[in-house]
């Protein structure tokens, strides 16, 4: 089966900022995304894990698979949105089966 190279972007971001990130991802032309809820961890802002009472420390993991140009646009647009918010943005190479879906 023929595989096609794409870029995978993973964004760990706090839940408050996630809606604006998702909006930006769609505006950049990505065909879709996946969101994993309630991820927790530790970074230079200290420990961030879900406390069900207050939503402020909740985090999500957003996975986007897109072409290289769209991926770079997403990366560039993510930086100003993440100012003052907790977030990690990484990009890697993946191969997909359905070229037209991503």
């Amino acid at each position, binding site marked *: 089966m023929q595989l096609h190279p794409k870029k995978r972007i993973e964004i760990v971001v*706090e839940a*408050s900022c996630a809606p604006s990130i998702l909006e930006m991802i769609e505006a950049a032309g990505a065909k879709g995304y996946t969101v994993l809820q309630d991820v927790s961890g530790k970074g230079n*802002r*200290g420990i961030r*894990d879900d*406390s069900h*009472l207050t939503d*402020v420390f909740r985090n999500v993991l957003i996975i986007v698979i897109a072409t290289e140009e769209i991926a770079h646009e997403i990366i560039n647009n993510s930086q100003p949105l993440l*100012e*003052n918010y907790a977030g990690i943005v990484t990009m890697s190479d993946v191969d997909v089966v359905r070229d037209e879906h991503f």
Partner: protein
Amino acid sequence: MVAMLAVMETPAIITGLLLARRSLGQASSDRESVFSPQVLRQVFLCGSVVLLAGSFMIGWTTGDGGMQIMAPLLKEPFQAVLAIFLLDMGLLVGKRLGDFGQVGKQLVMFGIYMPLIGAAIGMAAAAAIGLSVGGITLVAVLAASASYIVVPAAMRLSLPQANPAIYVTLSLAVTFPFNLAVGIPLYHAIAGMIGPA
């Protein structure tokens, strides 16, 4: 009076934002983001506020009959559920005990004397307009309280520079337990002294 609970968060948010804007030295051109659609949605349509306002309306329209139907769930187990809720809060606070390091002694003191100042102002106003002892107590409690449900989420959107480890810890782990353990009995006692006979 109960309706005050539902609306008291909004003036607090606006006041907090205005104070922050002033000390950040930002011009009034930034006033847009105070009332941005996202913040408004967060304040008025977040789960807790919808539940609160909705329950209030249901109670108002169904009256005593409705209360009788709901009593086995809402009235009988109230104290027990409250106790479990508070234990759960204790777990939560325990998990985030490390945050106290970021808060520091001075801010912890602020988390204790600010409610006292708020309660004093609230009681004076309530007594001045002639509320009952219960009414004065309730206004004092409201004026002394710090939000940990709606306000932190709204603040995260409109004032992201503020460190949530500080403000959530202060309201949840300092002011809230203080008001429960010391505040309410204190305000009630003083209300009994200054209220109508």
